[in-house]
């Protein structure tokens, strides 16, 4: 088993095929989309492949240490051009192929006109724990 992070972006990903902002959909199309996402997570829980999923607010800030006795420096909100993560799902699957297959299904979530969004999702393998046997044979 290997864990993969499926990343969804607010900004920074290549444009989706069906790239219409959600407030331009019909309310029914929004409902269908939400239902698809809920069903997807529920199905992965049933197959034993779901680990975690979270959504992130679009607002945030950069923060860094600014020396002893000084408050941290903050910079934000993010500039418009910034690559911006919208949320993630962590899955635990048997192969890279399975991770790609699932990301493809997630990207097929319906959008405007009830048609798949074809949104680009980022698939990132986790670095694994060190295996028990590390010697070469």
């Amino acid at each position: 088993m290997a864990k993969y992070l499926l990343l969804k972006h607010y900004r920074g990903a290549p444009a989706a095929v069906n790239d219409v902002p959600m407030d331009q959909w019909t309310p029914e199309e929004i409902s269908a989309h939400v239902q698809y996402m809920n069903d997807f997570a529920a199905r992965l829980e049933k197959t034993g492949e779901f680990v975690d999923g979270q959504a992130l607010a679009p607002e945030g800030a950069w923060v860094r240490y600014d020396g002893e006795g000084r408050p941290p420096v903050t910079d934000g909100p993010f500039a418009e051009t910034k690559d911006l993560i919208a949320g993630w799902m962590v899955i635990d699957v048997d192969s890279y192929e399975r991770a790609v297959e699932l990301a493809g299904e997630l990207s097929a979530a319906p959008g405007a006109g009830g048609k798949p969004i074809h949104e680009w999702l980022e698939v990132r393998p986790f670095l694994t724990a060190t295996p028990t046997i590390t010697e070469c044979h």
Partner: protein
Amino acid sequence: MNEALLRSLTPSVLAILVRRGADFAAAEDAVQDALVEAVRVWPADPPRDAKGWLVTVAWRKFLDAARSDAARRRREDLVDEEPAHGPAPAVDDTLQLYFLCAHPSLTPSSAVALTLRAVGGLTTRQIAQAYLVPEATMAQRISRAKRTVSGVRFDQPGDVATVLRVLYLVFNEGYSGDVDLAAEAIRLTRQLAAAIDHPEVAGLLALMLLHHARRAARTAPDGSLVPLAEQDRGRWDTGLIAEGVEILQAALARDRLGEFQAQAAIAALHADAPTAEETDWVQIVEWYDELTRLTDSPVVRLNRAVAVGEADGPRAGLAALAELDASLPRHTAVAAYLHERDGDLDTAARLYAEAAHEAPNLAERTHLTRQAARLNARRCR
């Protein structure tokens, strides 16, 4: 076996151990162990006296732990002078536990966790699941909280207001897991109301009951939010409403108004309206004026602007809104709503989309996006 009944015995059993001289942290662990044993043993062999059984087992667990820890001589001494089994303690002890677990030296998240465990009798795992954190994290939070209050004298009177804030947090920020935190908060508030005669405790209990009564109507089958005006009022729990109103009326008759009674009064006015159109918004505005006097909270003023918009028209609501800081959470959502009522659908749609962008949770975000979509779809046709 009724687990809620079992857990309702937690605070009095814990208080007895503390009265007998066990320190709070060790006693709390012992009571948890006894609860676990009760869940295991009782189904096959139910005791005649449930509380007596728990006290006996918890005290034995406490002694076992003390004995196994040779370094803790002080507790060893305690073992030798095992106190006589006195009469059952007064309800006061339960109250003292509430005060201890909501002690001002604790952070809100620590007070919530400690209250749920030491007063509510929930396991660390259940609390961790409810707040979506790892069990080890919650265990640390609880043990740090116990250390923080370990020096607090058990017989010191506490502040009811801090306890109410903790219970309100449990009610309002319940997330997930197999424990219904809203129901648990109601149970703990009921138990507190039985231990102390205080109009604000009654006010909070009434507020919780009135909100809980609407729970089934608050979410659609697909999980989306249903605003108050659109809820199917036939699905409101009339039993809970009647109980909440009765408790509230008795509290208000005492003439010691506080913020929870005022909030409950507003909830009761909503509950009282057979349809959304029949809501007595004028009275609701008056209660918001009372609340503003009591709390001077910007969130209250924001809600008041909505009520003013209903009572005196959207323009009046927008005027009330204009006096508030635009960076307040949900300010944009309220502005969108009032503009829609005022017939300015383009502005409303734009503001709903903006409010969705600022929404603090997914359900609200989806709801606000859907509002924007609804207005945009109408405009396109």
